[in-house]
């Protein structure tokens, strides 16, 4: 039971990390970057190579963050910059960008899952369950980054203009804010973020390029459950969904975890479309 709770919390943490990334571009650039999960997985694979070169951990993470930042900005330039206003074109373009990123990942590292180890992993006993240290790191990450990004949005000029942009894009432009740079900034931040956390995610799951699509979707469910634009909501909803999935798998059967995610999403859509902590203002239409 405790083991399942830890497992649930750490998968939930992964979903939260995705939802947090979605939230940043959603508030600052007004678009949902579906390719973000693919970038994050790419970050993990870069760490796989970087460990092979024998770099120390901070340098590995720095490398991942640097490359993913470039990739993410590339996604913004290619898939977002020229979007026609209105319509759902970003659905197709970011899906395409994600497909391309994952395809490149497969080209370089191959399609088969690999093991990524950043540091020694000895399971420890905690509160009546067993947990590997990386999962504890994973559980801590969204809390740290969630708070960090929350402070960024609340306390900086970037955050202020982002919120203004989310509230009224045209008025913000008229006030002399360069929303294009805002968009690039948001994609750069999420890229760096993906590079930093991607390695920890892949340590926990095994490094498979196909992981991206699964966590992209479940991360979106967390985003909707928590409420669009709410980092706090993403943290709470992520752990909640991870727990539900893990406990359903424990009590009903291993295959029913995925069903429970679908059911949760349908319930959110039907009963609380604005999510747990969302305002009705930020809408994805």
């Amino acid at each position, binding site marked *: 039971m405790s083991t399942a709770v830890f497992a649930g919390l750490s998968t939930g943490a992964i979903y939260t990390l995705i939802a947090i990334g979605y939230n940043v571009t959603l508030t600052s650039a007004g678009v949902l970057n579906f390719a973000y999960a693919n970038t994050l997985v790419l970050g993990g694979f870069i760490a796989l190579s970087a460990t092979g070169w024998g770099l120390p951990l901070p340098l590995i993470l720095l490398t991942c963050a640097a490359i993913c930042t470039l990739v993410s900005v590339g996604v913004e330039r290619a898939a977002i910059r020229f979007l026609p206003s209105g*319509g759902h*074109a970003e659905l197709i373009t970011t*899906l395409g960008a994600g497909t391309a990123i994952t395809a490149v990942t497969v080209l370089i590292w191959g399609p088969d899952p690999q093991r990524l180890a950043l540091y020694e992993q000895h399971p420890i006993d905690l509160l009546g369950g067993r947990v590997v240290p990386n999962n504890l790191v994973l559980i801590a990450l969204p809390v740290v980054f969630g708070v960090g990004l929350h402070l960024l949005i609340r306390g900086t000029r970037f955050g202020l203009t982002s919120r203004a942009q989310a509230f009224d894009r045209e008025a913000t432009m008229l006030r002399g804010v360069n929303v294009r740079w805002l968009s690039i900034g948001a994609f750069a931040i999420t890229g760096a973020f993906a590079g930093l956390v991607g390695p920890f995610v892949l340590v926990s799951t095994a490094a498979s390029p196909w992981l991206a699509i699964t966590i992209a979707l479940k991360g979106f469910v967390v985003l909707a459950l928590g409420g669009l634009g709410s980092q706090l909501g993403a943290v709470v909803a992520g752990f909640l969904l991870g727990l539900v999935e893990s406990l359903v798998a424990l009590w009903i059967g291993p295959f029913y975890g995925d069903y429970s995610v679908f059911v949760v999403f*349908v319930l959110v859509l039907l009963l609380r479309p604005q999510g747990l902590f969302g305002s009705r203002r930020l809408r*994805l239409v």
Partner: protein
Amino acid sequence: MSIQSIATGRARPWLLPAGWLLVTAVVANQPSLGLDAFWTRQIVLVCLSALLVSGLNLSLGWAGELNMGLPAMYAVGAYLTAYLSSKVFNDLAVCLVLSAVAAIVVGLLAGVPGLRLGGWMLAVCTFLLVGLIPVTLQVIPTSILGGQSGFVGIPRPRLFGHPLREEAFYAVVVVVTALWFALYRNAVKSPFGDSLLVLQHGPVLAPSLGLSRYRLKLTTYALASVPIGVAGSLFAYNDRFVAPESLGLHLILLTLVALIIAGRRSIYAIFVGVVVVQYLNNLSTEFDEWSDVAFGAFLVIGGLAFGGGIAGLARRVARRFIPVATAHAGAGAGAVPDLSGADLRLDAVRKTFGGVHAVADVSLLARAGQITALIGPNGSGKTTTLNLISGLQRPTAGRILLGDRDLTRLPAIQVARCGVARTFQTPAIPIELTVLDAVAAGRIQRRPISLLSTMLRSPKYRRVVRENREAAAQWLAVVGLSPVAGEPAAAMALGTRRMIELARALCADPSLLLLDEVASGLDRDEVEELATVLRKVRDAGATVILVEHNFSLVRSLADHVVVLAEGAVLTDGDPRTIAEHPEVLERFLGTGAGVSGTTLQEGRRA
């Protein structure tokens, strides 16, 4: 050009069905003409993909929503057919029908919760369904559906008790595909398709024409599931093996790429898109690793430029060879049919936004057979009042009555169906409609036709469409736009688009007509024409409410003027009294009334 000839449209209506029949007959007979197994298989695969692309096009192109659940619906068709044919009852026709039904059920499972919000919410909801395919196959015992390793042992198809040979099955695939495309074409080239184009225009226009966005999307969504389920069924019979690996993201990507090449809302060009993708896919087995990079890159580029595709290109080329009519005849040619107006009564209607009173206790009476003008400075609540009447906004307090009917709490769709038609400050003209069809769109809700009637072109469908087009042609004659009836409406000049909107509103045979600054941006001649038309409409018996800044036009037209200021009624009376009202003069008419607008003769009643 007579009204009849405008309404009938295309000459030689038998040409298209005959041509399609001929193509189908030739392609279906190909094996006897000596096609080898490779080419037969290629054509079958083209047919299956074309079915899938048409399904995706219905949801993405026509309903404007990305449906990622395609592999799930495809899987349901394939697995149902596999199971039925090998274990229960092997009949192709039964399997096709049941697969289509099952695909609709699965499609709606994800569509109903997702469609109301649309966009990403729908895309992810349907995408999650695809993720459940492998899980479901593991939950269901291997003895039933074969589990992860796939379903083997699907028998050769039988049809009405007779086993189908290879060539006969091939012919069935071709005929079924051709038949579906005929139905699909009929479904979208119709008032149903026109209302989907209205839908694309945004959230406001459809309800104010009495069309339910949600119902339209849901219907389209269900219809889109049909070819996908059918394709799944044919796929199972063709390969006689179904494996879960073929039912994932890759299938969506290929279908999406083919659709982008073919073009949004394309019909026949879908086959071109499918052939291109199939050719690339056959090539890509040689450099497999790179194909996903290429497809991904193509989606980025294609997603940005998703538009006409091949179909749009063909249309543009065709347009070059067809002469364009630009002549603009004067208004007043056609006769105006009787309109049974009803008195509109506003009783202490109020609308507050937060603490701001946009409309504060407005009471007014607009009589049938009269033009009531609503004037006042910017922000005085004129447009809000119109929105409250037409149901786009709900009043905070007060009552709105049309004749005996209480409109107060009705949503815009219901208000429109009670006979309230309106125009907008910025003309709302859907893309891709001809002027005639844009006007006829005003009538779609008056005589609903079932989708089945539409697809089969039943006698009822033909009669209703003919009557609607005749009515539209008649109103076009009234507003003087008959010469441009066949031109694309959205590309017209502002003045023309205002007239199209007016004709569309009139085409609904409204008892109440709401006009929001219908004269702004019109030149002097156009304003004269407008005034002529509106007098005829008034004399035909309609209730007309005119929101207008051009006081000279108001003076010339209105029987009754209501002056709003800061959300409340300042005064009301006949135009001459209003023009001399000291407070009105001081507040916004200024001393030189008529200077700001076109000067018109004072109204005469016929």
